[in-house]
């Protein structure tokens, strides 16, 4: 174990899987339905380009080991991806059955079936390459760094991951909705990835504070930046510092790692319309809050969050206030937040004079984005930071020799599977750099 043991009674443990696991028969039947397309659109839709028809055929023939190998060879984080990927907009969304108006193949669930099996059987597929004597420092123990480190080990390079938190796994451990994956499964994945050997993980160390980039450069031959995004963005309106008003990502991290009391909370307002807001409304609802409202400044169709997630939230009984913004918060007698003061907007998102309204709430979660961490490296000469993102070429190399980046800090905040793809691609670029390519 490299992280502290998880509290079995942490708040997230009340959630059940939204998409259940397949039995062997279900998996075989579903796999047998796959058309085994050539040059398949699902493969193109997957950022890590798993050979999906091939892994599915192997489930159908009972070659589960081969199936898992096909998945992990392309994406070492295939187990968490199977659970957390928004497959409706990735592989499953591009299944050709959609065009025939036939239910698409449940690729995520099949991938979960094969990868869970591999974990349960403790199959290992990859060995570290012959030691090259080179070492790489990786910032953050999130998906991007893990995928990068594993690929580097396959090529024989030593890896040290520096993680500021006590938990490893990045947002897979601290952010992902528990009805998709809980923190213990994310921890299993970290163990699985580290099973290749030769990846040191140092927790509780913030690069830039406890250890400087100069020190990293002195100790290692290359640096991978996989530090993700920063803390929740503020609304900057009066009353935001009242107890009961907090950032959504911060709240989710607490829910996933520790016990949480929502005593006295009957009504909650979640501000935002992105995927973090959609997760937060379903989570708060699932934790037992009766009246959950999503307050979004645009229309239903304009939401940046996935429609399939919103559809599920609606089924669970969440409602929304469209075209509204929070302009302030008021406290109740207990000094905690009690009301959200809101302003109605028009189609062009301009305030409509005189149209204000109030929402009662004992809990407010602000989900309007996370800050960018580019500034951390902005002062290093050669590294370019644009809108807070670390700029790289298509392989992940920054403008500074020996510095590479991938994941949320590079792409501004996408999905786990993008972090996995970018981390792996960067490892290939790092390998080329370390072996004299660059």
């Amino acid at each position, binding site marked *: 174990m490299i992280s502290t043991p998880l509290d079995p009674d942490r708040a997230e443990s009340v959630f059940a899987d939204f998409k259940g696991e397949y039995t*062997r*028969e279900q998996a075989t039947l579903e796999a047998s339905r796959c058309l*085994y397309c*050539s040059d398949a659109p699902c493969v193109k839709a997957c950022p890590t380009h798993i050979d999906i028809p*091939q892994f599915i*055929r*192997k489930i159908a*023939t*009972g*070659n589960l*080991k*081969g199936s898992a*190998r096909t998945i992990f060879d392309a994406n070492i984080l295939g187990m968490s991806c199977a659970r957390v990927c928004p497959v409706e907009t990735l592989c499953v969304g591009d299944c050709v059955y959609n065009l025939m108006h036939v239910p698409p193949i449940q690729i995520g669930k099949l991938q979960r079936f094969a990868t869970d099996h591999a974990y349960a059987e403790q199959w290992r597929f990859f060995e570290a390459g012959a030691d090259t004597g080179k070492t790489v420092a990786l910032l953050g123990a999130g998906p991007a760094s893990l995928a990068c480190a594993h690929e580097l080990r396959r090529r024989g390079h030593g890896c040290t991951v520096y993680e500021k938190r006590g938990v490893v796994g990045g947002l897979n451990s601290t952010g992902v909705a528990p009805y998709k994956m809980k923190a213990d499964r994310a921890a299993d994945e970290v163990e699985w990835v580290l099973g290749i050997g030769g990846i040191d993980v140092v927790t509780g160390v913030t690069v830039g504070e406890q250890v400087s980039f100069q020190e990293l450069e002195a100790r290692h031959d290359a640096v991978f930046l996989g530090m993700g995004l920063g803390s929740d963005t503020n609304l900057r309106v009066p009353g935001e510092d009242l107890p009961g008003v907090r950032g959504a990502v911060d709240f989710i991290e607490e829910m996933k790692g520790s016990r949480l009391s929502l005593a006295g909370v009957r009504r909650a307002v979640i501000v935002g319309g992105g995927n973090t807001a959609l997760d937060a409304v379903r989570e708060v609802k699932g934790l037992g809050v009766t009246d959950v409202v999503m307050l979004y400044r645009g229309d239903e169709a304009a939401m940046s969050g996935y429609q399939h997630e919103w559809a599920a939230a609606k089924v669970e009984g969440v409602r929304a206030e469209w075209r509204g913004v929070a302009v302030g918060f008021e406290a109740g007698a207990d000094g905690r937040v009690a009301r959200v003061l809101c302003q109605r907007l028009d189609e062009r998102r301009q305030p409509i004079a005189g149209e204000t309204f109030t929402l009662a709430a004992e809990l407010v979660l602000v989900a309007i984005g996370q800050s960018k961490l580019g500034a951390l490296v902005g002062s290093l000469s050669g590294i370019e930071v644009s809108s807070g993102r670390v700029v790289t070429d298509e392989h992940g190399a920054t403008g500074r020799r020996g510095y590479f980046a991938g994941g949320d800090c590079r792409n501004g905040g996408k999905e786990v599977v993008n972090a996995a793809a970018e981390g792996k691609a960067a490892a290939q670029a790092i390998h080329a750099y370390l072996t004299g390519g660059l």
Partner: protein
Amino acid sequence: MPDLSTNCGGIRSPNPFWLASAPPANSGGQVQRAFDAGWGGAVWKTLGQPIQNVSSRFGAHSVSGARAVGFNNIELITDRSLEINFREIYDTKKKYPKNAVIVSLMVETRQEWQDFIKRSVDTGADGLELNFGCPHGMCERGMGSAVGQEPKVNQEITSWAVEYSSIPVLVKLTPNVSDIVPHGLAAKRGGAHGVSLINTIKSIISVDIDRFVPEPRVDGLSTNGGYCGQAVKPIAMHMVAALAREEGFRLPISGIGGISNWRDAVEFILLGSSSVQVCTEVMLRGFRVVEDMIEGLDEYMRTHGFANLDAMIGKAVPRYSDWGNLDLNYETVAKIDPALCIGCNKCMIACEDGAHQCIHPNPTGARMPVVDESECVGCNLCQIVCPVEGCIDMVKVDNGFAPSSWNQFVEEGRVLRPKKGAH
């Protein structure tokens, strides 16, 4: 790490998976891509005197939405120039020295056989396969299955080939015979190093019921074709096993017919094949299917502790016996697992209408039916129709009777248990 390499009648390949002589092995480009994908060998599309093909050529037997469970064709041997074919065989063998390249031949006169064999051997190929199997077109001209159906002709042509060839000769047999054994023995007498079977089965795949023409339709006419694909596997396996267990035979066998995945391949190998050939599955899904075949076989060998292919070839042959040797006193009955039963009652109707009327509605009113074990004959029809894996088990009954086969009953007067379900 199990060793998947094989030696089939002197033809060596890194694994037992070969492309059958057919469209996927029509050209150098295809065979080389197949080798890149992992195929261990390829039997080149049959060479012979120039022919001309028809349009269309193929038909499919589709079942309940599963397309092309069976497949048939009316195409002939290669329609490409011999010079190009021989050059591409040469190039392919040069580029892929470890993979098996086998030249399939079908000609008429002794002189032609001598000629074609010389040119084939000159390519550096690893072996020859004599196509005595094609059941359409070529047989009307006295070749293909017309040879394979006549043991004397088969033996004679095989002996010419063996005389002219410095590389191993496999004889590809036709299934369009009542008993395969005399034909395998004829090839053996002719000196063959091994046999390949089966070629395709004479068939009419379907009829266009609006035009009143069988398919595939060549304008207003059609002809019988050769049947292959997954549907023919049981027939092919019987023929392979019939030769494998024949005392007087004992030649290496290259198994063919309906192999679509590693499980099929394992079955053919257990029944005595030292290599397996695939045509239809590749035609339908491409060379990439071999990845799963190799992995699946490798894993199977690991879990069963087979260090090499020889250890498993023919493992199931001694268990293939005559009916007269089966134990008539071995008794089983069906048991339904209440924890797994989904209450579909498919077993009940199957037994009621198609077997021995011994699965009945549950007297408690529950959906799970009950088996009357005193009447159950152990035919396992219910198990076959049950959609839930492991729900119906055929359980052995200890009836106190010592084993007795029909032969033992007739020859030694052993005692048979009372019949069940025969009233």
